[in-house]
């Protein structure tokens, strides 16, 4: 009886610890915090509704040169793998929509772009510090990689990794 009680206490404590982990800054291995944001047309998009896809969540801004530099390779990756269940979600922390729309249309970028004007998702939920910061999220909503700074998204190892995630259940 005492033994059972002890196990129950340990299980309870470990579940609390797990919950606390979700609450703090998300890292590799933790669930991607849910969010709801509007896209450039004002349409609401929730991360929850995209569960089942492999997602590259990218935080950027039009005043961030390295962010803009990596976008063409990100777009090419999106175009190549979107039909297999891969999605790029670019979250801009610009305070107005106009420069974002202008940049996206000028560069002919096809992936969805969301706006986080108050930085609620960037700062509060994802505890990011620099731009760009990207999170690769698997089909189960778990963060499998965090990339701080720009990256060459067209590199073969990146594509291979995403293909592996796409083929996993």
């Amino acid at each position: 009886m005492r033994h059972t009680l002890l196990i129950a206490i340990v299980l309870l404590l470990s579940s609390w610890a797990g919950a606390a982990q979700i609450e703090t800054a998300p890292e590799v291995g933790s669930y991607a915090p849910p969010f709801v944001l509007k896209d450039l047309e004002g349409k609401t998009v929730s991360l929850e509704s995209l569960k089942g896809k492999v997602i590259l969540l990218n935080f950027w801004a039009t005043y961030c040169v390295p962010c803009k530099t990596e976008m063409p390779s990100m777009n090419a990756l999106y175009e190549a793998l979107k039909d297999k269940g891969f999605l790029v979600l670019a979250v801009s922390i610009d305070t107005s929509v106009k420069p974002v729309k202008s940049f996206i249309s000028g560069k002919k970028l096809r992936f969805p772009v969301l706006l986080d004007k108050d930085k609620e998702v960037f700062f509060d939920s994802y505890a990011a510090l620099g731009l760009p910061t990207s999170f690769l999220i698997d089909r189960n909503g778990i963060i499998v990689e965090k990339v701080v700074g720009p990256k060459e998204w067209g590199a073969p190892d990146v594509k291979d990794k995403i293909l592996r995630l796409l083929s996993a259940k």
Partner: protein
Amino acid sequence: MKRMNRLGAWGLAAVVAALSACSSTVLVSKDGKGYFLGSGSNAAYRMLCESGDLKKVLADTRLPEETREGLYKYNCSSERSGDRVKQIYAALTAAERKDLRLAFTRNGYDINYLPC
């Protein structure tokens, strides 16, 4: 004037960005001046600590006392440390980070983000 201050802040941010890495902490700016939390610079100390601003910002939050004390200590004492500030920041819950962000904003600061 406000626009000039904002331009000044971003100009300064660009300079700081060139000198810093992505691993820096949050940049807070006010009146055209911006500094990383936990920075060891004297100018940051004057802006956040000598002015009493950080005390006011932290008092304006609902963060646990221990967290507020830690943030004050690692910004405004001889133990100033960007790494310790980052540790505290990462351990905050989303609601606590929001609380901190809004407290800075209410007290006249912008929280800015820099290109890596």
